[in-house]
C-alpha cells in the first residue's frame, strides 16, 4: 500500500498546485478584502502540505506495512466492477435516446446477468417488473419527467 500512497501523494500535490494556480488566476484580493480565489488558494497550499506529509508518512509506515502480506487489492473481482461501471455509463448516455422503460429494462437485465449465474427468464421477468414499477413510482406518482426516447415511452 505504501507504494500506492507515494504515487497518490504526487497526485494530491499536483491537484493542490493546480488549485493554487487556478485560484491565483481567479484573483486573490487582499487579506482585508479576499476575492474568489483567496480561500481556494489557502486550501491549495494546505493540500500541498498534506501531500508532503503523506509522502513522508509512506516511508515511515513502510516497515509496518511490509509485514502485512495481504493486499487490499488481492482477489478483487475487477472484471465485474468495470463491467457494471460501463453498464451505468451506457445507461446515462443512452437514456435520452432509448427512453426510460427500454433503457432501464436493458440495464437491469445486464446487471442481473453480471452477478452470480441467473437464468435468462428470471432476469427478463425481474427487469420487466422493476422497470414498470419504478416508472409508475417515479414517473407517474412522483412526476419525474423521464425521457421518452425514440419509441415514445
Amino acid at each position, binding site marked *: 500500500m505504501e507504494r*500506492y500512497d507515494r504515487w497518490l501523494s504526487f497526485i494530491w500535490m499536483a491537484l493542490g498546485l493546480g488549485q493554487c494556480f487556478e485560484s491565483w488566476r481567479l484573483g486573490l484580493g487582499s487579506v*482585508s478584502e479576499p476575492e*474568489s480565489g483567496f480561500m481556494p488558494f489557502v486550501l491549495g497550499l494546505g*493540500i500541498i502540505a498534506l501531500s508532503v506529509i*503523506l509522502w513522508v508518512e509512506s516511508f515511515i509506515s513502510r516497515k509496518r506495512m511490509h509485514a502485512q502480506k495481504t493486499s487490499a*487489492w488481492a482477489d478483487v*473481482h475487477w472484471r465485474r466492477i468495470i463491467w*457494471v461501471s460501463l453498464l451505468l455509463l451506457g445507461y446515462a448516455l443512452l437514456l435520452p435516446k432509448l427512453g426510460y422503460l427500454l433503457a432501464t429494462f436493458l440495464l437491469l437485465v445486464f*446487471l442481473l446477468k453480471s452477478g452470480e449465474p441467473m437464468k435468462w427468464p428470471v432476469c427478463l421477468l425481474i427487469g420487466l417488473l422493476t422497470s414498470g414499477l419504478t416508472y409508475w413510482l417515479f414517473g407517474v406518482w412522483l412526476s419525474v419527467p*423521464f425521457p421518452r426516447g425514440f419509441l415514445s415511452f
Partner: protein
Amino acid sequence: MDFLTNLAQGFQIGLLPINLLYCFIGVLLGTLIGVLPGIGPSATIALLLPTTFRISPVSAIIMLAGIYYGAQYGGSTTSILVNIPGEAASVVTCLDGYQMARKGRAGPALGISAFGSFIAGTLSVLGLMVLAVPLSAIALKFGFPEYFAIMCLGLSIVSYLGRGSFFKSLLMAAIGVSISFIGMDIVVGKPRFDFGLLVLGDGVGLIPLLMGLFGIAEVFSNLEQKNQTRDIFQTKIQGLLPNLKDWKDSWGAILRGSVLGFFLGILPGGGAVVASFLSYAVERKVSKHPERLGTGVIEGVAGPESANNSATGGAFIPLFVLGIPSNVAMAMLLGALMIHGLQPGPLLIRDHPEIFWGTVASMYIGNVMLLVLNLPLIGLWVKLLKVPYKILFPMILLFCMIGAYSMNNNPADMLVMLFFGVLGYLLRKFGYELAPLVLAFILGPQMEQAFRQSLIMSDGNPLVFFTRPISAGAMGLAAFLLVSAFIPAWKNRRKRIDGGTP
C-alpha cells in the same frame, strides 16, 4: 411552560396522519436496511432524498430521521442471528449477541436489544429536547469567527476519529471543501473551477456526490468480493421478553449506554459506532466478572445497543443548534433541510419551531413504532436476510441513477454520480475516509463565507480567530489535534481508539 407548549405543538404535527405515515415509512425502511448488510443509513437517506422534494420539509425530515435511528434497531438482528453486523454500530453486538443465540437465547438477546434501544432512544430524545433550545440561544450570539472555528474543529475531530491515517482524513476534508468551490462564488457571483463544463456551472450537486460516494461505491465494494453465502443460525426464536434476571443484569448497562451514547453522539465523528464500542469497554470495566463478557452475557448486548441508539438523539444537537452535522447521515439531513430552503442552525428553532419540535415528537412516536415493529416482525427480518445480493444490487444502482437524474432531470448528473462512485471506491481501497470529504463538502460554502466575512470585519487581521474566547478555544483544540498526530504517544492512543472502531 413554553417547553410544554412547544412539545404539544410538536405532537400535533407529529401525529398528523401524513406525518405518521412518513414516520412509519422511515422507521420501516431504517429497520430494513439495518437488517440488510451491504447498505447503510447514509446510502439509504441519499437514495430517498429525491423522493422528498415534493413533500413538506417537516414530513421529509421526519422520514429521513426515521431511517437513521431505525437502522440502529435493525442492525442488531443480523449481529445476533447471523454474526454479521447489519450496521457498523452493531459490530460489537456480535460478541455476546451471537453467543447468546448459540446458547438458545436468541429471543432474550433480540428482546433486550429492542427494549434497550427503545429506552435509550427515548432518553436521548428527552436530552435533545432539554439541551437544544438553551444551546441554540447561546449559539445565536456566535459571530463569523466562532462559526469558522467550530467548523474547523468539527472537521478536525471527524478526521481524528476516522480510521487509518489522520492526515489522509484531513486531506479528504480539504478535498471536500475544494469540491464545494466548484461553481458560482456565492459572495460575488463569479464562476470558478467549472472548466467550462455546463454540468459544473451550478457546482457539484449534493445528491450525485452522496449517491456516488455512498451508494455506488458501497455496491462496488460489495461486488469486488467473491460470492458470499450467509449462514443464518438455525434456532427457534422464542421468549422475546427478557425475564426478571435479564432485566436485573441489563438495566445498569442500558442506563450507562444511554448517557454515554448521547454525549458521544454530540461529538463530531463520535456517533453510534464509537458509542457502542466504548459502552462495551465500560461494561467490561464495571462488571464483577469481566471474563464472562464475550461468552454470551446479556449486558454485552444491552449496553452497546442502548449506546448506539442514544447516540442518534445526541447527533441531532449540533445539527439543530449550530447547523453543523456530526456525521454523514446528519450531513444528509442538513442537505435535505437546505434543499427545502431551510438553513439549519440556531435560527431554525426560533423561526421554524415546527421543524424542530415536529421532528422531536416524531422521534418519540418512531421509537414506539420501532419497538412494535421489531419484536413481532423478527421472523420477517430473518427471511429478508435471504434476499440474495445479486438481486439487491441492481435495484440499489437503479435507485441511485434515478435519484441523480431526478435532481435536475439531467442525465449528466448521472455521469457526475458515476465519477464520484468510482472515486469513492478507489479512495476506500487506498484507505481514505469518505466521511470527512462529505462533511467538508457540505460545510464548505458556510466555511468560506465565515472565513471571508471574518477577515473583512477584522480588516484583514487573521488573529480574529484567536482573540475571541470561543473561536480561540475551538481553534486551539483543532491545533492540538493536529499537533498530537505528530506526537508518538498520542498517535498510539489514537490507534487504540481506531482499533476498536470497525
